[in-house]
């Protein structure tokens, strides 16, 4: 790298999170939209870790408790997320089984792993590799919402299947816990500040010299 690219933090400048305007951080409040100005999100790592641990703790009951109860001709049958997926697999509906596996089991788990990895890298416990970190953060921000699909399915089934004595479906306690996992991981991803990773890289003198692949500017 010929010249190190300037970073806003060295000029005491902060980009507003809400409106993007760049102002000196000493002003404390964005002159355009009135949002709080800060160089880095406050207590980013500890907040992310706390939310992520809460999500990880809820992940266990979310997979053990039934998400819905099917009462068919007096037979009560409570299914968890995993059981529901296995049933799809057994009946030969492999694509849906895969969708549920990815959205409900893989994504929350991967998100928790990815966030802990990001937190470790940002706090200097791990050596970060810049190309990976970008992709990991993108993944945590974008894919988390898709885990909500199972909750929506429960809601839809409860609404549709109310056939009196023949068959009814009621939501189980697992559904609420699982929704909690999804919302908590979303908040955890939002409270993580990716700029901390670059602060760490800069401190280690590992500033990536690779220019972006396609620059439109």
């Amino acid at each position: 790298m010929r010249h190190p690219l300037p970073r806003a933090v060295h000029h005491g400048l902060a980009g507003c999170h809400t409106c993007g305007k760049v102002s000196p951080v000493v002003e404390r409040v964005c002159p355009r939209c009135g949002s709080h100005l800060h160089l880095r999100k406050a207590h980013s790592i500890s907040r992310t870790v706390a939310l992520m641990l809460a999500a990880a703790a809820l992940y266990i009951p979310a997979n053990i408790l039934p998400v819905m109860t099917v009462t068919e001709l007096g037979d009560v049958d409570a299914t968890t997320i995993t059981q529901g997926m296995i049933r799809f697999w057994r009946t030969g509906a492999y694509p849906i089984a895969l969708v549920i596996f990815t959205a409900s089991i893989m994504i929350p788990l991967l998100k928790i792993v990815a966030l802990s990895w990001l937190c470790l890298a940002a706090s200097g416990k791990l050596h970060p590799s810049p190309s990976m970190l970008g992709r990991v953060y993108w993944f945590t921000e974008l894919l988390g919402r898709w885990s909500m699909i199972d909750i929506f399915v429960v809601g839809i089934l409860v609404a549709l299947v109310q056939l009196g004595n023949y068959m009814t479906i009621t939501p189980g306690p697992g559904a609420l816990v699982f929704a909690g996992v999804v919302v908590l991981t979303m908040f955890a991803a939002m409270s993580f500040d990716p700029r901390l990773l670059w602060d760490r890289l800069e401190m280690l003198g590992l500033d990536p010299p690779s220019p972006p692949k396609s620059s439109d500017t």
Partner: protein
Amino acid sequence: MIKPFSRSKRALHPWPKPPGGPHYSVCHFCDTLHESEPVPEGTAARCKRCGALLYQNRPASLVRATAFSMTSLILMGVVHYFPFLIMDADGGFRATLNLTSAARALFEEGSPILAVGLALFTIIAPISMAAGLIYVCGPLMFGRVAPGAFFVAKWLNKTEPWNMVEVFLLGVLVSLLKLAKVAEVHFGAGFWAFGLLMFCMAAAIASIDRDELWDRLEVAKS
């Protein structure tokens, strides 16, 4: 006016910048400071360090954002009156699924928190995003700022990640396949309208860049 699209002759139509300057742009990802220069329509400025998107110049941004948001709101009305799924079970049972029925059923079956969440993610967030975009972008087309537009624009950012229209659509699909073995289920008009709504919402949000929206707001206010 619809301009023919040509890649070779991209017009440099910068949006108005607030007085003063130079204007800067900071990469939200790696904190690199850039001097923000106008880019040709339909292109984006990317971070020199990490390649993340800085800002985009979208063609006909205000008009498109307003138009797509209005279409979304109209479709929301259509969706409300037509069922998503129609289920015919043995014994002449017929059940239909509406936009609000999933949330209502969860509420009645003893999960009020889930019901509120579902309503927030699939009804309230998309409606408020579309209405907010119209409220902010509509008057801006005529160089005016609606009262409280800054507040609304601020909340648009915050609502965006909670708008889960596309996730709900996939949920409807999975439910259909799940119920296919117990009953005869088919799509209603609501499903297709909701599918269109998904594209209109995405188009409305993508039509205007955040920096452009705020620059225009600031210019119109001063």
